[in-house]
């Protein structure tokens, strides 16, 4: 029996080998596409500071910081709005179509306005990340709370649970799967928002690095940076997977 992890690793290695060989044999231009080995070298050089990338760690750190700030804000505000909307039926029914309309809107169209008001720096980019990431958190929180089986609460009432125990022993675990799914998706969306903002505003952060690589036709570096962004998403997803394994049954 081969384990899924081993199969996955084998698949990735095979793909990289095909990629490497086909570029090597076809002799395609290095400016158009890089080979995995070149990408690895470029990544290594950036990591050890041997490349001409401008302020590599500072810019990467800035993007991660934007992502963390944006996600923290999206989580706090998203959970709060979701909870209020779930418990206050009139407000929930009034807001739902508005929230859905905002959710469906391609947020990138609002970016110029955000740059005008919040600037093209950290605030503007984080704000854009929040805007992209928050809706799915709101919806899932409110859905998770609303769809709790009323029988769960009838039971806890019959057992004389007070409000605290009712919240921590019934409401929280009952809503957790849906809310956590919202937080996971919200992370992905926030990442998309922050990266979009980065690519539209190339003055600092990962956007600055990508601009540097593509402007100079440093294709291996460009690929390396893209893989780095993908890595951020995968890392976040793994964190959520482990959380869900622990909390959700």
């Amino acid at each position: 029996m081969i384990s899924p992890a081993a199969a996955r690793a084998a698949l990735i290695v095979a793909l990289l080998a095909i990629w490497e060989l086909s570029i090597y044999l076809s002799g395609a231009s290095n400016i158009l596409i890089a080979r995995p080995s070149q990408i690895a070298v470029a990544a290594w050089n950036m990591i050890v500071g041997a490349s001409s990338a401008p302020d590599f760690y500072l810019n990467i750190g800035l993007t991660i910081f934007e992502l963390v700030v944006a996600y923290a804000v999206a989580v706090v505000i998203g959970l709060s709005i979701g909870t209020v909307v779930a418990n206050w039926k009139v407000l929930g029914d009034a807001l739902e179509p508005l929230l859905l309309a905002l959710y469906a809107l391609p947020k990138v169209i609002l970016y110029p306005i955000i740059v005008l008001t919040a600037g093209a720096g950290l605030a503007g980019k984080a704000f854009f990340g929040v805007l992209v990431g928050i809706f799915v958190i709101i919806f899932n929180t409110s859905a998770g709370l609303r769809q709790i089986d009323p029988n769960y609460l009838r039971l806890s009432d019959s057992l004389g649970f007070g409000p605290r125990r009712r919240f921590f022993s019934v409401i929280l675990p009952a809503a957790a799967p849906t809310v956590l799914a919202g937080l996971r998706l919200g992370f992905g969306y926030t990442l998309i928002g922050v990266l979009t903002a980065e690519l539209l505003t190339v003055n600092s952060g990962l956007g600055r690095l990508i601009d540097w690589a593509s402007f100079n036709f440093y294709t291996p570096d460009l690929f390396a940076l893209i893989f780095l962004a993908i890595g951020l998403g995968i890392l976040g997803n793994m964190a959520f997977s482990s959380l869900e394994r622990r909390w959700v049954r």
Partner: protein
Amino acid sequence: MAVIQATKISKTFYNPSESRAVKTLDDVSFSADKDEFVVLLGPSGCGKSTFLNILAGLTSHDRDGGKVTVHGRTVLAPQPDLIAYMFQDSILYPWRTVIKNVELGLETRAMSRAERRERAFKYLDLVGLRAYADHYPRQISGGMAQRVALCRSLALETEIILMDEPFGALDEQTRATLGSELASICRELKRTVVFVTHSLAEAAFLGDRIAVFSAQPGRIKIDIKNNLPRPRVMGSPEFRNFVDELWLHLQDAKQQAGAAPDRQGSPLGAT
């Protein structure tokens, strides 16, 4: 001596969409003695669940002089130390294992973790589910889930247990098995039980006494002592006779309410 007593209980539901009041229960008086197993039998919609919820303090009743008392003290809110409630559905929390579900009601008590565990195992042993203690609810069958719910109620070790059609969602065979398990558990443990059902066979098999409800508004039409000797045998002639008697009372109750009897023929076929 009556452990739980309800006097002149009425319940009116207001239907806001039609701005109409419906009297579901009208002047129901009822009592259960210590260690007695009383069955509430009646047609669907006659207010049995409503009445049981009022006994449990889960639902309010009309303020017109009626009251529910346990040992002479008025019940206004759930009394988890005195009354355990078992619902029609097992209502197990899917994020808890079987044993953690059994322990649920004990978590408000001043008990150590080990005491809770010991108590839970005691009742899981009683229904033969010790081996499933660490399973999650989705890994067990409906009949097993209902046994776990029974354990959860028994583990509270309250004097009174209220049961609202606890086996109603199960197939006939499982239902009969659980019924006889419950009968032997009750003989052993001595609890005061009020048990709602619309199954005649279940009522005749389990009840020391059977209160037959009539519908619209719900009233207790007749209160019958069940003198069948225990252990009871479901197919025996005396048992069939008693079921027939209950069937007639139930038909009367329906006709009184102005509703046509919904089925003629063998009462056992309608259980």
